[in-house]
């Protein structure tokens, strides 16, 4: 038997401490690699924390409600054989993508700058002269009610201590991660138009055969094509840490998911290159649902090896991303629109999307970035091979 120390994980470059909120296990329980064993509250929200070791719980060292620094032993496990003395971490480097942690806050909070406001609360705010931007719901993800407006009006009357407001905390986290990105990462940007006509026609035919509950969003085509393109073009999938590029052990695509009310999250779809389109759709559905109403897991925040942002069928035509450190690339897709194209001397209408790449020039050059976008284009012309 060996002892294994389960420690407070780092869920972002700027996370120094976390509060253990709840244990899902007790001494004597068997645990499996990947199991959610605890809930940890960071300044940005509650996260389900997984363990990466099989064993049985010997001792819970830290009691719920305790705030401890990253790296503090939370629990001890008995593991069979000469198990490792220290946690085999998920493959992400210690400095997990900072914005993903933002995401964490968002996940728990589930709404931000434009919060959900009941019509009654809106009227009350007008009556009391309260700026709704200053009002938060009484629970994360909740709807702002009249009582919340009245609470703020009351607080404004007397000088109150700053509330530990998760909305502003999330904004702070985004600010920190993006400032770090723009301070440290020399971005280069590339863009290309991709003809989506064939891919969309194929997907529409697939969806027409599927029950409505199995219908797939076109974003899954993008995820799969990107994941396969990353297999072909090395040096874009991974992290820049300690002055060098480190390739990710798998292709874990961080999907940028907008929060209702502002802010965003980019949790990982693990091993996207090895999932079928229906599997990717199920994974995406699960992620978005938990981003909006539940909780993300620590590995989803720590693991993304690249970020993909897709504006779908709404919004603007081009998006130029800011890389989430320590990742080295972000691929963006604007809105699909019908555009006139010249083909063999004739003008024809095609459904087009502009794909962009934000690359870290320390890790790659524009030439390689161009190869990635070219591969992406080629893969999207044969949608049946993405299935």
């Amino acid at each position: 038997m060996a002892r294994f120390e389960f420690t407070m994980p780092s869920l972002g470059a700027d996370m120094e401490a976390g509060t253990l909120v709840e244990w899902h296990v007790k001494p004597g329980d068997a645990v499996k690699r990947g199991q959610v064993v605890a809930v940890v509250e960071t300044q940005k929200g509650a996260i389900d924390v997984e363990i990466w070791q099989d064993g049985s719980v010997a001792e819970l060292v830290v009691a719920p409600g305790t705030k401890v620094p990253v790296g503090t032993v939370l629990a001890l496990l008995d593991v069979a054989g000469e198990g490792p003395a220290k946690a085999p971490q998920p493959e992400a480097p210690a400095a997990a993508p900072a914005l993903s942690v933002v995401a964490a806050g968002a996940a728990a909070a589930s709404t931000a700058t434009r919060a959900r406001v009941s019509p009654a609360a809106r009227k009350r705010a007008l009556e009391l002269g309260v700026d709704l931007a200053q009002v938060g719901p009484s629970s994360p993800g909740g709807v702002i009610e009249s009582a919340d407006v009245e609470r703020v009006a009351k607080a404004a009357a007397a000088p109150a201590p700053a509330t530990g407001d998760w909305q502003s905390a999330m904004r702070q986290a985004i600010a920190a991660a993006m400032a770090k990105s723009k301070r440290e990462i020399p971005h280069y940007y590339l863009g290309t138009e991709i003809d989506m006509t064939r891919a969309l026609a194929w997907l529409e035919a697939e969806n027409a055969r599927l029950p409505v509950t199995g219908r797939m969003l076109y974003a899954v085509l993008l995820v799969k094509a990107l994941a396969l393109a990353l297999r072909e073009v090395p040096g874009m999938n991974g992290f820049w840490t300690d002055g060098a590029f480190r390739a990710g052990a798998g292709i874990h695509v961080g999907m940028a998911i907008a929060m209702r009310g502002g802010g965003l999250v980019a949790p990982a779809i693990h091993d996207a290159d090895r999932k079928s389109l229906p599997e990717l759709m199920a994974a995406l559905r699960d992620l978005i649902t938990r981003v909006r109403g539940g909780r993300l897991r620590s590995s989803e925040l720590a693991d993304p090896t690249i970020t993909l942002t897709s504006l779908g069928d709404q919004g603007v035509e081009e998006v130029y991303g800011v890389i989430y450190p320590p990742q080295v690339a972000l691929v963006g897709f604007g809105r699909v629109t019908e555009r006139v194209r010249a083909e063999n001397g004739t003008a024809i209408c095609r459904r087009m999307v502009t794909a962009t790449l934000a690359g870290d020039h320390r890790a790659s050059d524009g030439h390689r970035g161009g190869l990635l976008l070219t591969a992406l284009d080629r893969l999207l012309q044969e949608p049946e091979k993405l299935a």
Partner: protein
Amino acid sequence: MTVTDRAGLRALVVDTLAAFAPEVDYDTLAPDKPLREQIDIDSFDFLNVIIRLHERLGIDIPEADYARLETLDSTLAYLAQRLGLD
């Protein structure tokens, strides 16, 4: 829930949308202007609305008909036609 008239249909549709966009005041929504822009739902939640309408009304809205769900008015007209309320 059985829908027998236009008013009932509107109530059901608004109730369905409100599950995804609860802060919207549906009484002041412009019924003849693009719906998704006004209530700000993305393609994922739009698909969820379609699924919920399928569950509640028993009709399967094919992707090819999404264009007919542009505004609240056109959505209600489309659903009324599919339900045979007209």
